[in-house]
């Protein structure tokens, strides 16, 4: 079987894969990084989104061998070494942007890339359009949109601290 070598969450890894093995299978089954999920078989749901060389991609739609030499970051690799959450993770928690949590890893990875690629800042409508590739069945997206809006302010350095959700 061919061998693929890449960096995952900062660590070099190397594994034997079949030609048909998908990146998500390599992550979940070989490397046991089960934070990246599989929610569909038609590239529709985005539960599998990871970063490959800085871009968000659906890891169910990339062959493992195509990731040869790539830098892959998964949801497990987002928080700082001391456990400090990425502002996007923090915002999802603050704004109750997750319920069952299944879409969450892909949603967070997509959201980070979306915000990074739009330094000018995104309107609510643009955030909604930017989430086209990610499905959530639980939240109705309302709080996901709020969370991303709050996180972009921190990520673009507009504010130091994450704006807090309105208290009830």
């Amino acid at each position, binding site marked *: 079987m061919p061998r693929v070598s890449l960096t995952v969450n900062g660590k070099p890894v190397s594994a034997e894969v*079949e030609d*048909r*093995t998908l990146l998500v299978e390599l992550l*979940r*089954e070989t490397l*046991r*990084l*089960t*934070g*990246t*999920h*599989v*929610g*569909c*078989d*038609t590239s*529709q*749901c985005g*539960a599998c989104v990871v970063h490959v060389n800085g871009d968000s991609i659906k890891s169910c739609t990339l062959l493992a061998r195509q990731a040869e030499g790539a830098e892959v970051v*998964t*949801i*497990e690799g*987002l*928080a700082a070494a001391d456990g400090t*959450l990425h502002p996007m*993770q923090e915002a*999802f*928690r*603050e704004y*109750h942007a*997750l*319920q*069952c*949590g*299944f*879409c*969450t*890893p892909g949603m*967070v990875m997509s959201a980070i890339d979306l915000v990074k690629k739009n330094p000018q800042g995104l309107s*609510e*409508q643009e*955030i*909604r*359009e930017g*989430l*086209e590739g*990610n*499905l*959530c*069945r*639980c*939240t*109705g*997206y*309302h*709080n*996901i*949109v709020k969370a991303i809006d709050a996180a972009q302010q921190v990520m673009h350095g507009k504010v130091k601290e994450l704006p807090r*959700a309105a208290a*009830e």
Partner: protein
Amino acid sequence: MGFEGIGASVKRREDLRFLSGRGNYTDDINRPGQLHAVIVRSPHPHARITAIDTAAARAAPGVAAVFVGEDMAAENIGGLPCGWQVKNKDGSPMAEPPHPVLAIGKVRHVGDPVAVVIAETKAQARDAAELVSVTYEELKGAPTLEAALKPGAPAVHDDVPGNVCYDWHLGDKDATDAAFAGAHKVARLELVNNRLIPNAMEPRAAVGEYDTMSGEYTLYTTSQNPHVIRLLMGAFVLHIPEHKLRVVAPDVGGGFGSKIYHYAEEAIVTWASAKVKRPVKWTAERTESFMSDAHGRDHVTVAEMAMDANGKFLGLRVRTLANMGAYLSTFAPCVPTYLYATLLAGTYTTPAIYAEVKAVFTNSVPVDAYRGAGRPEATFLLERLVDQCAIEMGLDRVEIRKRNFIPSSAFPYQTPVALQYDSGDYGATLEACLKAADWAGFEARRAEAKARGKLRGIGISTYLEACGIAPSAVVGSLGARAGLYEVANIRVNPTGSITVFTGTHSHGQGHETTFAQLMADKFGIPMDQIEIVHGDTARIPFGMGTYGSRSLAVGGSAMVKAADKIIAKGKKIAAHLLEADAADIEFKDGRFQVAGTDRAKALAEISLTAYVPHNYPIEELEPGLEETAFYDPKNFTFPGGCHIAEVEIDPDTGVTHVVNFTAVDDVGRVINPMIVEGQIQGGVAQGIGQALLETCVYDEDGQLISGSMMDYTMPRADDLPNISVGTAITLCTHNPLGVKGCGEVGAIGSPPAVIGAVVDALKDHGVRHIDMPATPQKVWGIINANRPRMAAE
């Protein structure tokens, strides 16, 4: 406990693991030596199996075993049981044909499991599954209600004539006929409640494991109710005694009803793990979910309302056909009957109601409860019919509702369809919602939209639902084969921290947080001293799980009852230590105190004494501080409220956008407002999905056309608006918390509001009703078929 207790929007404790990729979903579980199962499914809607050749699959690389229906039958494996028996009008039982785990002789829907291939890797199992050769003799299929009821329709089950599962009724026919005879006007509506595919984002999965030493089986599964699965699978299917069977439902990625039922794959992996003596894992691909998860809704209904000269409702007559699919799923029969027709009074004083429901077998995936289950169908019918009543009477939609509301002074209110509502104030939720949605200002917004070339409409629904399922004796008398109480075990640990074992299950609802808040409030200790345990039959007592918005109303009540037992015992221990009378001990803020003195003992001191009973009233009190309570509710709970939707339609494309959505709901006492709001928003999103986007489509032979996420329209972020949620509560009068439930109200109340808004937007085009989903194609067709006269312009 102001900050963390009842009423505080505490952030969820489950979030950290989900946000860090450290959730533990069933497919994340890998057991040592595990094999992988792939199911071979029927590609045909209806066919006789004439031969199955598994030789090539067995010989394929990595294959450990291949099993077919006959292999299971040879070991007397039972069929999948149905948990509810509904009776026909004449009192005879419904038709209940067998539901083999793996098909025997015949397949009855696309996706019906025929064989299982078990191999070292998933890829090998998949490859070998391709080599299983099944010879079918195709039969004509009847996937829809219409097709299955036609004279000469193919028989889905050979021994069920006419494909009728049951023909049931509820209410007073004579009184209803009399109401119609004396009516001033009658409004009539024919409608379809579209078939939905639940699509929780986590596909179903199951891992079976057999311990050859102890003879114990473990099943890890994506379930909302592990004890129910253990009972059904152990007692009825695999004949494994319950003490040798453990069912674990770990983190579960959404359920919405679809993960209540006992599914074939659970039995297959559990049984097969003993045959191959290794753990066996199966995970659905999404395509399999579409053709094997129980679907929802699928009704065709004719309804009529009789009114007097003032628009007061006199009588309601309803005839419904309900699609059961090819087999009876676990709770299917109760959905279009006891969870549906009993809701037909809604929030109104209609004095006479008569409903007839015919349930029908078809060549389609089994249909069962999906978020709301029966109540969305009843609500859609009733609220759409009330809108027709307003048109008939020339009354405003709000006015006709007000004229017919059950007044808040009338509770407890006995409806003519069995239920007795305990509390509510429909006028209050209506007024609050009208205000929040600026109903009064709508015509200006319509005019403004018109100037932009858009058709704007507004719709309203003043719904009610029954949840907090359910009083066991009542549901037993209606055909349930299970009790529907809930249980909690509270263990105060020696050092005073608390572990709560609940029979409910959290798959997105945030129970680990809400229940901890509840217990923090009750015991006056910080939340971080409290752990909530659920989902593992080896740890939790026998409870019924989570569905029907029951977890807080029933499970939370059990917790309160158990906590009260703890406190009562703690008082006796404190009385002993403080040399006082137990009757004089008060429990407050985590301390047992002699009333009117400063003599007190903290909970942790009491628990330590209970487990180290050196100075202890051992003659009259057992050591330890752990109590279990079972709570059987006295009644259902009745959340209700008002939903208002505002839509804009682009007449050039027929695309409808929900531009505003406002909900004001009465869900009883709120423990965590943030979580409640999220639950309602999620429910509304599914309701908007049903109203505008989602529908399951079979072709006329029974091929599933909407069989993937490319073909079935799931709501995406840019399909939905912000969803404004408010509450205006009355307390439930019969449970200790005053809670009603919030999990389903969003999906129940919203569809008629959205369709009402679409119809309102198209009111110049001569439509009075549009069936769901109001797709662009449908809406565009209406606009173009009935262009309004231009004369006025």
